[in-house]
């Protein structure tokens, strides 16, 4: 895949037109930055991603890591890319200057991550997991743990993992069995098995820092009894260098559909009773700590799904412009030239859907990233709190919508390429395989839908929802163009149904119809998601109309008209699909919940 990973114009539009990212520089934390430094950082990300990550994306997939019983080996390109990422200083990009960071806004770091995820999601996972783990340590661990583990993680000497899932406990983490017993030296001995741990073993770095969820015997049952531990692969000597092995053993690698370059591991902790773990923060607070990081982590998954969707879209678009096939009425004589397939209506449909899904999902995630910035740096306490409420409400959507529609976009990319799309000679099937993970990890989309319908919507007396409505109204009030006003009117009729629907659902959740309602959670996510995405598309259309009212080049004109047309497509084609869901939800349809296991 040559060409740009993500079009410069798209990034600029999202960052500086749809969002006013430059205004962040008025905030004290970002005062040293300006559009130019943001641009330079984005350039470095783009360059690194294009030159060191993209070229081995297919190779890391076909030549997946292997384990000979002693060591994991993988293609060398991964380490080259990993080291360059660290040397460029991205791992600490968000951190304070005095921690060696760059104090970059989340919005910009998200845009940077887009280049890497579009180029090569599986190699990108190694530094990203490390950043996630480092973030938890930085936020919740003792000074001593921070001083010991953070510097080597930030410099890329150590990587990190998140070890939550166990063979019998994935979505239901309350039931994990890994135990942590206090030893005489004040540290803990960890015992148990973890499954699917990404980056759980490899030779990229001299040490791996696992963040492990485990239960301290005698603690409360369920999620309130889960604690978090730092468990290094090698224990450190007095100088902080990896020394003794820490009784964390790789039981085996897991062979996956996609994301093959990232090692997926089954890990055994404490088989010989000698796995040392260091408690992070207070006992029994482990899941709470993890959840604090969840909004950011889920944003990352959503954005990854969006940009992989976008890669497939761009590739299939280029292909459709070059591949000629068939003729278009009225010029259907064999003597007439064949046309590029992009001119066929059905191919346009598939490209428009991909554009709507991937650029829409990117825009949603950028909105989420901006909220993360506002949570931390908005001027007033009130604004910071509001940003948090809104982000908390939107997080299940930010995770689930892109990860449901990203793979759908890739599925359509395969279809646009026809037979070529189904072959491994073309990259779109890998996009689909890689992207197919996203609805599963970081909380399955089923769990996200439940979270949205049974918790987030009602949280703080619906404060998040009220904020969302306010945001939508304020955006819509800026619509000046005829097209966006028409679209707003169409969305209005669906938004109006939301309130009575919530009344119905709210009551039913408290009744014996509870099982029926929650079996329709996916429909609720659809309704809410399509309304949110209509707003996200209209936001873009409004900005496009504004731009078109000024002076633009032919090329810019095409870009903005494309945005407006896609908003139209979304509202006319995708939004009405929720009629079915509205019906099912309002009727408290119990087709699924009434189905008995024996009847299958």
């Amino acid at each position, binding site marked *: 895949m040559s060409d740009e990973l993500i079009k410069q114009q798209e990034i600029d539009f999202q960052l500086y037109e749809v969002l006013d990212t430059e205004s962040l520089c008025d905030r004290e934390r970002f005062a040293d930055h300006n559009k130019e430094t943001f641009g*330079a*950082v984005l350039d*470095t990300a783009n360059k690194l991603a*294009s030159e060191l990550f993209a070229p081995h994306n297919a190779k890391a997939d076909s030549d997946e890591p292997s384990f000979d019983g002693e060591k994991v080996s993988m293609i060398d390109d991964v380490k080259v890319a990993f080291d*360059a990422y660290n040397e*460029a200083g*991205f791992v600490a990009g968000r951190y304070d200057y005095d921690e060696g960071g760059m104090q970059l806004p989340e919005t910009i770091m998200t845009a940077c991550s887009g280049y890497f995820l579009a180029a090569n999601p599986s190699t990108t996972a190694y530094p990203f997991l490390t950043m996630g783990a480092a973030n938890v340590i930085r936020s919740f661990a003792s000074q001593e743990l921070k001083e010991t583990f953070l510097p080597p993680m930030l410099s890329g000497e150590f990587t990190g993992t998140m070890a939550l899932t166990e063979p019998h406990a994935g979505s239901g983490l309350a039931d994990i069995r890994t135990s942590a017993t206090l030893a005489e030296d004040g540290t803990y001995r960890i015992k148990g098995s973890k499954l699917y741990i990404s980056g759980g073993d490899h030779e990229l770095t001299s040490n791996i820092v696992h963040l492990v969820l485990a239960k301290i015997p005698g603690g409360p049952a369920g999620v309130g009894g889960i604690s978090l531990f730092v468990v290094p692969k090698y224990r450190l000597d007095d100088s902080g260098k990896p020394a003794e092995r820490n009784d964390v053993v790789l039981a085996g690698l897991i062979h996956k559909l996609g994301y093959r370059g990232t090692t997926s591991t089954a890990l055994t902790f404490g088989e010989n009773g000698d796995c040392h773990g260091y408690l992070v923060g207070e006992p029994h607070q482990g899941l709470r700590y993890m959840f604090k990081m969840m909004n950011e982590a889920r944003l990352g998954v959503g954005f990854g799904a969006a940009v992989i969707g976008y890669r497939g879209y761009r590739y299939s678009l280029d292909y459709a412009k070059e591949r000629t096939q068939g003729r278009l009425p009225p010029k259907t004589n064999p003597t007439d030239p064949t046309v590029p397939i992009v001119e066929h209506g059905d191919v346009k449909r598939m490209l428009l859907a991909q554009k709507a899904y991937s650029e829409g999902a990117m825009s949603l995630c950028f909105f989420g990233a901006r909220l993360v910035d506002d949570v931390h740096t908005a001027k007033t306490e009130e604004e910071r709190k509001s940003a948090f409420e809104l982000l908390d409400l939107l997080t299940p959507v930010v995770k689930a919508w892109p990860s449901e529609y990203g793979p759908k976009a890739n599925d359509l990319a395969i279809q646009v390429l026809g037979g070529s799309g189904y072959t491994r000679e073309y990259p779109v099937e890998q996009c689909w395989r890689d992207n197919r993970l996203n609805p599963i990890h970081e909380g399955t989309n089923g769990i996200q839908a439940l979270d949205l319908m049974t918790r987030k919507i009602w949280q703080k007396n619906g404060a998040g929802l009220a904020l969302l409505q306010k945001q939508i109204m304020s955006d819509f009030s800026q619509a000046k163009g005829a097209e966006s006003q028409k679209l707003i009117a169409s969305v209005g009729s669906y938004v109006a149904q939301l309130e009575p629907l919530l009344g119905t659902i709210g009551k039913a959740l408290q009744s014996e119809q509870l099982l029926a309602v929650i079996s329709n959670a996916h429909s609720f996510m659809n309704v809410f998601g399509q309304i949110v995405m209509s707003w996200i598309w209209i936001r873009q259309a409004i900005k496009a109309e504004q731009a078109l009212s000024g002076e633009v*080049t032919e090329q810019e004109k095409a870009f903005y008209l494309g945005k407006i047309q896609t908003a139209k497509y979304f509202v006319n084609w995708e939004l009405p699909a929720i009629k079915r869901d509205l019906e099912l939800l309002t009727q408290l349809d119990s087709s699924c919940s009434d189905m008995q296991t024996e009847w299958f």
Partner: protein
Amino acid sequence: MKVLVPVKRAIDYNVKVRVKPDNSGVDLANTKMSINPFCEIAVEEAVRLKEKGVATEIVVVSVGDKSCQEQIRTALALGADRGIQIDTDLSLDSLQIAKLLKQVVDKEEPQLVILGKQSIDSDNNQTGQMLAALTVMPQGTFASEVVVDGDKVNVTREIDGGLQTVALNLPAVVTTDLRLNEPRYASLPNIMKAKRKPLEVMPAADFGVDLTSKVSVIKVEPPAQREGGAKVADVAELVEKLKTEAKVI
């Protein structure tokens, strides 16, 4: 030793180039622009000379409108010390650029000027040679190795027949080839440092150089589409086709 590195803002090499519908040029609206790759190699070489303790100061210069400050900043983030933007909205030819650069050379008196051998947009391969002629400095073009040795610089050149090494008296002009080095990436901390490095803006009009272009672009066209090949049954048929169809023998 002071090193002067002229850099050019050019279309990014990853971008698929589009010709404007009216064939007047390449459509640059909203396309990604970068330092011309050969110029980036020139910056890298200068930075390496500085890291070796050979160079003491690296000055980057670019001719263009305000937007080329972006590329100057990139060069500063890669390790150059200060920048000069020669400000003009005009699109200039190699000769005018070389004349402007000569003035900078006269003022800055660098011991070494390192330029890219050509820019990937116009592929002229002229500016370095012209600058050498105008400043009466020796030139080593298409360098794949540059070794400063006292008051001389040994430049290994990539030529058609292989490699040629020339020894030039300093001050000298060197132009870079692709294999000279692999440029580093601008790290995030260095991007912040670059912000604080001096960047001087000088109006091109003040240089007393005639900036009217001597070259006019008549038409820009995309390269012809490659046509599918054909298989021939044997050598005889190949020779026949080369004679009658391709008319090359």
